């Protein structure tokens, strides 16, 4: 029975798609520039955010307000740097054949898990000093705005952390399953 299934599988009608080497070369170049421009777009968007914040700060003579803006800008810059360093999009590695499936899969899962696991430290906490100072500054006028801001930040942080914890748990389960295979 199983030999028949193997034969059935191998005998299935296949019309091999002709692959043109020149097309492959062009696609390879296009892919590299596409990945590169996506990374550039993301960096530019982040830098624009920083520039916008800097622009709103120019001319402000209140040292505390300037400090809170600078802290927020530093937080944004840190997140951008971290994303650029660890989370940039890239094409598949050139020596994909040097890795067996288990190693390739493990490497990919570990990288994703580590990036998600540290999300509080690299994605959320850099904004905390700036946000805290902004809230304190707001209290000089009324407590409602800072309280609303604090509530919003807490809910947003909780939501991001919860989503990431779930993703990390799923990735850990997959890694544990993978460890049994090797």
């Amino acid at each position, binding site marked *: 029975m199983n030999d028949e299934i*193997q034969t059935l599988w191998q005998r299935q009608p296949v019309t091999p*798609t002709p692959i043109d080497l020149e097309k492959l070369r062009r696609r*390879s170049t296009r*892919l590299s520039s596409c990945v590169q421009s996506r990374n550039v777009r993301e960096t530019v968007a982040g830098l624009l955010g920083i520039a916008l914040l800097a622009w709103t700060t120019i001319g402000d003579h209140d040292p505390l307000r300037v400090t809170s803006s600078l802290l927020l800008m530093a937080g944004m810059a840190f997140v951008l740097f971290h994303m650029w360093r660890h989370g940039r999009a890239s094409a598949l590695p050139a020596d994909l054949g040097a890795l067996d499936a288990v190693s390739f899969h493990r490497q990919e899962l570990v990288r994703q898990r580590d990036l998600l696991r540290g999300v509080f430290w690299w994605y959320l906490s850099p904004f905390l000093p700036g946000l805290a100072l902004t809230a304190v500054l707001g209290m000089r006028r009324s407590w409602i705005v800072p309280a609303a801001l604090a509530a919003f930040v807490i809910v947003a942080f909780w939501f991001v952390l919860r989503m990431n914890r779930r993703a990390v748990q799923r990735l850990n389960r997959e890694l544990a399953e993978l460890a049994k*295979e090797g």
Partner: protein
Amino acid sequence: LAGQVGNLPTLRKKIPLGVTISNVNSTQDDRYRTAAGEYGAALERLARAYEADADRRRDLLQEIHLALWRSFAGWSAACSMRTWVYRVAHNAAASHVIRERRTRSRELVSVEELETARDPIQAEAAAGEREALDRLFALVQQLKPLDRQVILSYLEGLDAAAISEITGISAGNVAVKIHRIKHVLAKQFHEGAKHE
């Protein structure tokens, strides 16, 4: 944030001293032509098993061929060409499955889960080869990437040692998985035959 984690570390290509870029290119092209000629049909079958949608399948196949061509620039002959080709193809396809999982939430199962399931897929009567193949594809496409690699390699006629080399799964585990796969296949197709 999910989009940010889709990258892979780029590994350096090693080009031996004294080898010119044009030599590398021609060797790379020649190796690719040989591999594509020898394993072209197997790669088509593999792409079909990983992607049911025709348009996405065409993209996946192109992606596999591109990964294969790029990989031959750094091929060190540390393993056979067959192992290399299947590793590249399966890794590229698994990467495709992981990517697609973010947009299409579909639960994948293991061979073990399939074996214990009462009726994993509808056992309709297989009136001919086409229906039997459709059922086989339906079965393969619901498997997790690693199990899918084992069953596809088995269907391609590779032995346990070769499958172990491609997947990195220990030979003992591969043997157990093949045993289970045979059981699942026999059950599926026997039930189909009973309905005929």
